[in-house]
């Protein structure tokens, strides 16, 4: 006989999900699942549309990470129009896309840390729920809260200037981009009034890292042990092994650092990655084909990226990366809450890259689109590292230039299995031998999921809004307890 505990939706996670934790008669956790219950229909929606519309159409998925989808789609279409295999653009074309992408990375990571995760570090996961939000931060550490707001604003400005507009930006087009960046626009970001300039962003990125590292120093057991379990890690890396979020090859390592996917061409991802469908979730479960479902699942995102890459091509972030790697003696880091540490190193990396790109005179070039193109193809694949992890866009078109097939493997889908395992790990640690559910218990499960910064809207294309609901079912299925947050 067993009990079932259901938590829905997961607060402070994009869209919504439902967590079910199964207890036995001794109140021990015997199973857990993160259900994704929204229908995913986007791939079918783009079928029949002209291929050049895809980079703008995909932004309709949700308004949370439109830039990532915009760029991944544009990369896939570069292949279709014969503009290389992801690295065939003009200098200004590639650098403008990179700038837009790093701007998105910066603002997305900043929002996640300051708005969603830092409350857990400031107040503890058993802290007052009324305080565990940015208002709570504002009341106890106003400077930190203001920094979060202004850093996010800076990232949004980078996107606005590179994409042209905030909604349905058209910056990236097949074969290039549709605008460059004037010196005045660069100066706006380089020499903007304090704090809205690139130097201040680098400075604040360093102080955010210090904030996390100080917390870690004082709570290292709690941080290190929370939802810690071995896993594989997958990401793009540059051909020389550098961290690169725009272009590269696919690399995966196992929990001990052994290469299990050795810098393969992402245009053949389907030879290496397969997706399993489970009846209780609309979100698929990707895994490495050659290792099978049981052993082939992997993590993506900041933690995975720092586990797969050899170095970071930016001096301050590289220094932090070395400290991060030294903590696990050069071995992959399998501690879920270290996603936050890795994410903040990427914030610093993004700030450095944005600053350096803004000094690059190539941004003022006029050759926005490649002029000499290769043969047009009927199929294109674009892969980038989105803030939450590796993002695959795959399109096929017919002779009339209409899309006949689209396959998207979004970052959150790649993290489906590890998120489920994190829930299980947390549930065992916090809920074993407990008959009733407390707010800290519920939040602990959410903290575990939140570490991945999942975008369930994106993974399922839900509009996503509902109150938090928790139900406990007894062994015979009747409701023992039901709680609603609104």
């Amino acid at each position: 006989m067993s009990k079932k505990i259901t938590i829905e939706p997961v607060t402070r996670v994009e869209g919504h999900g439902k967590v079910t934790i199964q207890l036995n008669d001794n109140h021990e956790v015997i199973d857990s699942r993160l259900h994704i219950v929204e229908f995913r229909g986007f791939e079918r929606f783009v079928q029949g549309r002209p291929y050049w519309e895809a980079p703008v159409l995909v932004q309709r998925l949700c308004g949370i990470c439109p830039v990532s989808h915009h760029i991944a789609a544009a990369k896939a279409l570069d292949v279709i129009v014969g503009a290389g295999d992801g690295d065939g653009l003009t200098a200004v074309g590639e650098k403008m896309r990179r700038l837009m992408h790093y701007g998105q990375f910066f603002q997305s990571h900043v929002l996640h840390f300051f708005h969603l995760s830092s409350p857990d570090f400031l107040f503890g996961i058993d802290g007052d729920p009324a305080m565990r939000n940015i208002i709570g931060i504002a009341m106890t550490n106003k400077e930190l809260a203001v920094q979060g707001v202004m850093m996010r604003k800076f990232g949004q400005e980078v996107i606005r200037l590179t994409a042209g507009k905030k909604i349905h930006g058209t910056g990236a087009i097949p074969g290039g981009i549709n605008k460059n960046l004037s010196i005045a626009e660069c100066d706006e970001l380089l020499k903007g009034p304090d704090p809205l300039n690139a130097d201040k962003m680098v400075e604040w990125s360093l102080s955010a890292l210090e904030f996390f590292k100080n917390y870690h120093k004082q709570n290292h057991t709690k941080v290190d042990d929370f939802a810690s379990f071995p896993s594989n890690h997958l990401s793009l890396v540059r051909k020389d092994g550098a961290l690169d979020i725009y272009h590269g090859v696919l690399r995966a390592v196992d929990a001990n650092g052994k290469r299990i996917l050795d810098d393969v061409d992402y245009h053949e991802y389907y030879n290496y990655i397969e997706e399993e469908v489970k009846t209780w979730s609309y979100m698929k479960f990707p895994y490495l084909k050659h290792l099978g479902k049981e052993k082939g699942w992997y993590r993506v995102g900041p933690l995975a990226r720092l586990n797969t890459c050899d170095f970071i091509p930016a001096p301050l972030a590289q220094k932090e990366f070395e400290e991060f790697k030294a903590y696990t003696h050069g071995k992959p880091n399998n501690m879920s809450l270290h996603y936050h540490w890795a994410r903040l190193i990427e914030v610093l990396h993004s700030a450095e890259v944005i600053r350096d790109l803004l000094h690059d005179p190539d941004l003022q070039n006029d050759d926005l689109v490649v002029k000499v193109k290769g043969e047009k193809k009927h199929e294109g694949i674009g892969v980038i590292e989105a803030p939450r992890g590796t993002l695959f866009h795959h399109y096929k078109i017919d002779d009339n230039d209409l899309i006949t097939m689209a396959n998207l493997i979004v970052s959150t889908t790649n993290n489906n299995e590890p998120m489920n395992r994190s829930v299980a790990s947390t549930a065992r640690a916090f809920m074993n031998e407990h008959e009733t559910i407390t707010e800290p218990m519920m939040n602990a499960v959410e903290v575990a999921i939140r570490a991945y910064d999942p975008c369930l809207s994106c993974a399922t294309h839900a509009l996503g809004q509902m109150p938090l609901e928790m139900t406990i079912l007894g062994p015979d299925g009747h409701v023992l307890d039901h709680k609603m947050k609104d």
Partner: protein
Amino acid sequence: MKKILVYGYGNPGRQDDGLGVHCAKRVKEWAEKHFPEAIDVDMNYQLNIEDAEKISHYDEVIFADASAEDIIEFAFTTLKPSKAQLEFSMHAMAPAYVLYLCHTLFGKQPKSHLLHIRGYEWGMKEELTGKAKQNLDKSFRAVTMLLTNYLSDN
């Protein structure tokens, strides 16, 4: 001179969810002709933390959004700051929450209003439904009339 911000939000790629943005676009065109100095217009997919800083620079703010609630055509209400974050989707913020954040972080509290325009369908399409278009027309006329009266008096 009083400075006013009209801020439309929503996803125009999700049919009537884009009503706030469509309204803001029309107000922008109108304001550029009639009150270019007094009215600024912005739009985005959703409200977020940086908007707390943005609205701190204005005397009055009108948020325009689509609504699935059972209202007749549109509703115009005064906003009060509230820290109750009703939307669990973590990157989306309610306007009252943005207002609260603005006051807490930047010590400003612009007079704020919410224009809710009734929408009906939320699929992945650009075009508004017929009824939503009618509501947009009516709400646009109302908000421009309010703005004209307000700026004539101030």
